[in-house]
Each structure stands twice: as structure tokens, then as C-alpha cells.
């Protein structure tokens, strides 16, 4: 168990009371002191707070209608912190129950009552969705099946209904860190959970032609279409398409792109997001140092931008624009169709190591 006492909650950079100034970007970060933290910055690149975490964080989710953001430990961590957006202070630490660990992502479905977190049942390897009552100090109310192994990112589906879950298909156990325990028997897929009944509303897999792909990250468009990004664990000399879409009724197709652009993703997608208009799909590949873009409606490939160690990705304030964060090249914005990437913000933003995901609150 990680020591959660004094390590948590010291807000290192003051900046209280700014949540009302406009949207904040919230992300896990490693400061130049080497300590893991959660930080928030504005659209024009001003850091509002940086608050220490018990270990390396992963993704964050905003509790609807409140100033609370829940930051999850990176898998296979067993903690999540509830952070006040207005002050940057940690309000509470949520612990995964015995026999479960978090996978790093969570979601609310319709309102701010029930937090759904992807978790691992360590005894069976089956994925579960832990249910935490945000109105009762995030007390764990129970769990539902994720209908797969290795659930990772999840999101509610506007219009289409239900909670779509990326079941990566990779089994791990904290005793062996992040080692893949079922390399020969991965069953990646998307499942749509009915959060009311716990039933599986539909399940879509990638089929035998896509063996070795692990679906890890996703985002849902306003029409209920799910866009997902994969990591390929098969033959390194193969190069399958990595970005796909699932229609509200569960049909999957992949988004095409030129071979040399696909090669630049280096068989790895780390984040998926839509722009503010919902018309541009973007993915990042830290292993390829590349961000790539498609037109949502037509599926047409729009191009790519290089940025070293890029992974965090969120819509920027303007339509057809994105905020990109990197482990060693700070924060940038890019606008479609311009070919450039513009650095964002104060020196702190390029001094720190930005982690895998960034949340637009």
C-alpha cells in the first residue's frame, strides 16, 4: 500500500478561486523536483495549481455540476484523489477495495452522483466497473462487469445511451507490475454497459484479422459514435490501422490513413479526442512523436503534426484546434489545417513532465 498520509494534498502552486475564469486543463504531471502531482492550467497557458499526488497519476474526470475532479492512479494503482478545482486542494483519497486495482480512468454517466471506475478483479483477471457514490464520500456501492479483460478508458454515450468501455484485453497483476499475462489470448473489444441494469447492451470485437490490437482509449461524439485508439502488441513488422469508430449500433470500422503516416504512429496510440466542434478526431502517439487528425463525418485523413513524447490531448478553445502535452516538450496548440504547432504558456509548462492525458473541464 502506498503511503497516502502526508504525501498527498500539499498545493505547491497557489492559485485559488480561478475555476470560474474559464475552462481549466487538468493533468497528471511530474515536476522538476521529480514529484508526481496533478496540475491545472488555463487555455492561455497559466498554471492555476499543482498539487502533490501519492504516486503517478493517469486520467482525470470532472464530476458534473461541481468543482470536483477525480484523478486516478496509473494502473495498477489503488488510489484516486478528489481534487477541488477552485483551490487545487485534495478533498479526499478514494482507495480501491481489497482484490481490485484501478486502471486509471473513470466516468460519470448522466449526473454527478455515481463515479464509474475501470478496475481489475485480481483473482479472476476479469474487468469490473467499480461504483462510487459521490454524494456519500465516494463510498463504494458495488461493481458491475466490464464484459472483458483489462478495461481502460470509458465514457457515456450521448443519444445512444449506455457507458462504452474499452476492454484492452490485456491481463496484468500488481505482483508482476505491468507485464502482459495473456499475450497469446488477448480479446480486445468495446462493450456498452447499461449502468441501470448492469446488462451488456452490445459488445463489439475487432475480429480475427486484428489479433494483437488492444483498444485502450476512446472518446464519444455527440451522435453517440465512439472513436477509439489501439496499441498493437503483435509482430512489430506488421502495421495495422490503429484508430477506429463504432457506430451507435455497434458496427466497427477503421479510419484510413497513408502508410507513412501510420508508420509514424509506431503501432501505438496514447490518447483520443474530438475538437470543440466535434468535427475533428485527433489521436496522439508518444512512441511516434506524432499527432494525427481526421474529419469526423467523412473519415478523411487530415494530416499529422510532429511533437516529441506527445500524449496528452484535449480540445482547444477554438474549433478544429487541440491542446497537446508532452513529457519533454511542454504544451502546445495546433490548429487544423495549419501546419504548425505553437508553444503555449509560461516557462513552468515546458519545465514539467506532462503525463498521458489531459482533461478539459
Amino acid at each position, binding site marked *: 500500500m502506498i503511503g497516502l498520509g502526508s504525501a498527498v494534498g500539499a498545493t505547491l502552486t497557489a492559485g485559488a478561486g480561478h475555476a470560474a475564469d474559464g475552462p481549466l486543463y487538468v493533468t497528471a504531471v511530474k515536476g522538476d523536483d521529480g514529484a508526481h502531482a496533478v496540475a491545472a492550467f488555463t487555455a492561455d497557458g497559466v498554471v492555476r495549481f499543482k498539487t502533490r499526488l501519492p504516486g503517478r497519476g493517469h486520467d482525470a474526470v470532472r464530476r458534473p455540476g461541481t468543482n470536483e475532479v477525480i484523478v486516478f492512479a496509473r494502473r495498477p494503482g489503488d488510489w484516486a484523489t478528489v481534487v477541488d478545482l477552485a483551490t487545487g486542494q485534495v478533498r479526499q483519497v478514494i482507495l480501491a477495495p481489497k482484490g481490485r486495482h484501478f486502471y486509471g480512468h473513470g466516468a460519470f454517466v448522466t449526473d454527478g452522483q455515481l463515479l464509474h471506475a475501470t478496475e481489475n478483479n485480481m483473482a479472476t483477471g476479469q474487468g469490473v466497473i467499480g461504483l462510487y457514490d459521490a454524494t456519500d464520500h465516494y463510498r463504494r456501492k458495488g461493481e458491475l462487469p466490464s464484459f472483458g479483460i483489462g478495461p481502460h478508458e470509458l465514457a457515456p454515450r450521448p443519444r445512444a445511451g449506455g457507458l462504452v468501455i474499452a476492454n484492452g484485453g490485456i491481463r496484468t497483476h500488481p505482483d508482476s507490475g505491468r507485464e502482459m499475462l495473456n499475450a497469446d489470448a488477448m480479446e480486445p473489444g468495446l462493450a456498452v454497459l447499461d449502468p441501470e441494469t448492469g446488462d451488456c447492451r452490445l459488445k463489439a470485437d475487432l475480429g480475427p484479422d486484428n489479433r494483437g490490437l488492444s483498444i485502450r482509449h476512446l472518446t464519444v461524439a455527440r451522435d453517440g459514435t465512439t472513436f477509439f485508439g489501439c496499441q498493437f502488441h503483435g509482430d512489430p513488422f506488421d502495421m495495422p490501422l490503429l484508430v477506429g469508430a463504432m457506430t451507435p449500433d455497434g458496427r466497427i470500422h477503421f479510419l484510413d490513413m497513408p502508410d507513412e503516416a501510420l508508420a509514424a504512429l509506431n503501432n501505438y496510440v496514447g490518447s483520443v479526442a474530438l475538437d470543440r466542434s466535434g468535427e475533428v478526431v485527433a489521436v496522439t502517439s508518444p512512441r511516434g512523436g506524432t499527432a494525427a487528425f481526421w474529419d469526423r463525418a467523412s473519415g478523411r485523413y487530415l494530416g499529422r503534426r510532429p511533437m516529441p513524447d506527445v500524449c496528452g490531448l484535449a480540445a482547444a478553445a477554438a474549433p478544429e484546434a487541440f491542446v497537446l502535452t508532452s*513529457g519533454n516538450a511542454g504544451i502546445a496548440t495546433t490548429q487544423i489545417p495549419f501546419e504548425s504547432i505553437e508553444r503555449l504558456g509560461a516557462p513552468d509548462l515546458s519545465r514539467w513532465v506532462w503525463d498521458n492525458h489531459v482533461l478539459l473541464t
Partner: protein
Amino acid sequence: MIARLVLPLLLAVVAIDASAADRREILDRIAGDFIVPRYQALADATGEQKKVWDSFCAKPSAAGVDDLQAAFHKVADAWSSIEIVRYGPISKDFRHERLAHWPERRNAVSRALESVLRWNEEAILTPKRFAGSSVAGQGVTAMERLLTDVYKREALAVGGEWSKYCALGRAIAGSQADVSAAVLNEWIGKNGLRESLATADENTLREAVTRIATDLLAAYEFVDDLKLGAIMGPELGKSRAAMAEGRRSGRPTRIIVLNLEAMRALTRISLDTEDDQVIDALDNAIRMARDLPPQFATLADDPKRRWRLVLLRDMIWSARNLSQTTIPPALDITLGFNSLDGD
């Protein structure tokens, strides 16, 4: 899973509290003793290769083909000695991808060459147009393919078709020379990166050191996991010899050696010492790699000799672990983790 012989981490890690002046000094050392001389060598080799192609195509001959091969090997050596660096001007305009294209997937290099061969010669020899063709057809791997597969097929068939292959060779050589000259110039020319680093603020300096160190650590993964591991395969009988980088020109082992030597040199210059366990581990790995046959993959499916590759990977793994522990504190940086350790 390959058993790893990880060296015990009995390290007295020397951490420094680097000032802007310290970082400037480190970067000046890295640029002056490692990056710039190696890009200079690449620019020289690619410039020479361009001349050799121009004179060969003016008067093709069997002896001239030997000159083309020799010029290619010099370029390939120069590239393998600097390819680990992705920081700086090489990161612009997809230059790194244009100079190298490995691992090759979906037969991209041959398809790119065949596509350009459908153009007329004038188009092929228009640098701007050629630069816009697939990056897979512009690099060292493409030149190797042209000099082996295509050349063998058309061996000295001096005639209409050969002149088209000649145009393609000149275009690739010209592109490599242009890219290499631009990278060198943007390092050392007026307002070049070296000049701007000399007056850069602390954050720019920190980022530069961090990026170069990340490149160095990423090179371990690339060499160990892909160039060696993916080729030798997870067990006997599962090697992928045909996919090895430089296989057609007999260079797979040489590439590993040159990459490791570059990693050693960059480590030594960064740490400013010969006396470090990472250097010792890399020296062991280099010695072991130099003893391998030119096509190291021939050992991969041989039950009596595969251990030599396994041991080499263990040595590289040890150097990788030691580097991860030693280099960040020695340079007072926090290393990026998305590309090395994502989710």
C-alpha cells in the same frame, strides 16, 4: 521471456544541481564533440555519394557500381553513427523519416521506389517533386534496395530503363545530401541551433538536455527490442532474419555496433567521464557485438550459438537499466515517460 542478467544497482548516483551555465556547458560539449562532427560526416558522405552517382550516370560501368556501393556504405555508416539523435533540425520536415526507413512495414520501401519509377526522368530529377514522394523511398534503406534488388535485376543493362534507375539513384542521393546539409547548416550556420543554445534561457537549455537524454534512452529500446529482439525472435525457430536492418547490404551487425558506439560516445560526453558503470556495460556490449558474424540473425535459430545474442541483449539491458538510474540525476533532469512508459 528472455532471462535478464541485470547488474546489481550498486550505484553511487551522483546528482547535481545544474545551473543554466552547467547545462550550456553540457550542451556545448554534446554539440561540439558528438552531434556536429557526426552531422558533418553525414553531410560529407552524402555529398560525396551525390557526386559518385552523377559521374556514374554520366558514364555507367561495372567498376562504377563498386564506387556506388562504397559511397553507400559510407553514408550508411555516418547515418548509423548519428541516427539516435532526434532533437534539433533533424526533427523538422520529417527529415529523420526521410533519411531512414526501418522497420519497413507493408513493403513500403519497394512500393515507394516502384511508384517513383513510374514517373518520367525529369520529374524524378526535380528535387522538390521527389522530396514530396513517400519518405520510405528517400532514405538509406531505399538506396540499399536500389543498389541490391533493382540493380541485380537490371545488372548493367545500360539502356533506357537503366537510365531511369540512374535518375532514381541520383534523386535519392541528392535528397540525402540536401537533407544532411540542411541539418548541419541549421546546427552550425548563422542563427543556427548551436548559436541559439549559447544564449538560450534556462528552460530552453533544460528542454534540450532532456530531449537529448530521452533520445539516448529511447535508443536502447530501439536497438535492444527492435533491431535485435524482434529479429532474433522470442525463441529458437522464430527469427525474422529477412527483416533485419541492412540485411541486403550485409550490415545488420555493423549497424548494431555503430549504434552502440554512438550511445557510448553520447553517454561519455554527457557524463563527462570514462569512469562509469554505464560505459563499462556498453563496452561489454560493443565487444560482444563486434564478435558476431555480419548477419547476426544466422545465430538466432542455432541452438548452439543463440546464447551469444541472448547475452548481448542482456548486456544492453544492463546498460539501459544503469542509464535510467544514472543519467537523469547526473544531468539534473526529469525524463519524459510517455514514449518510454506509456499506457
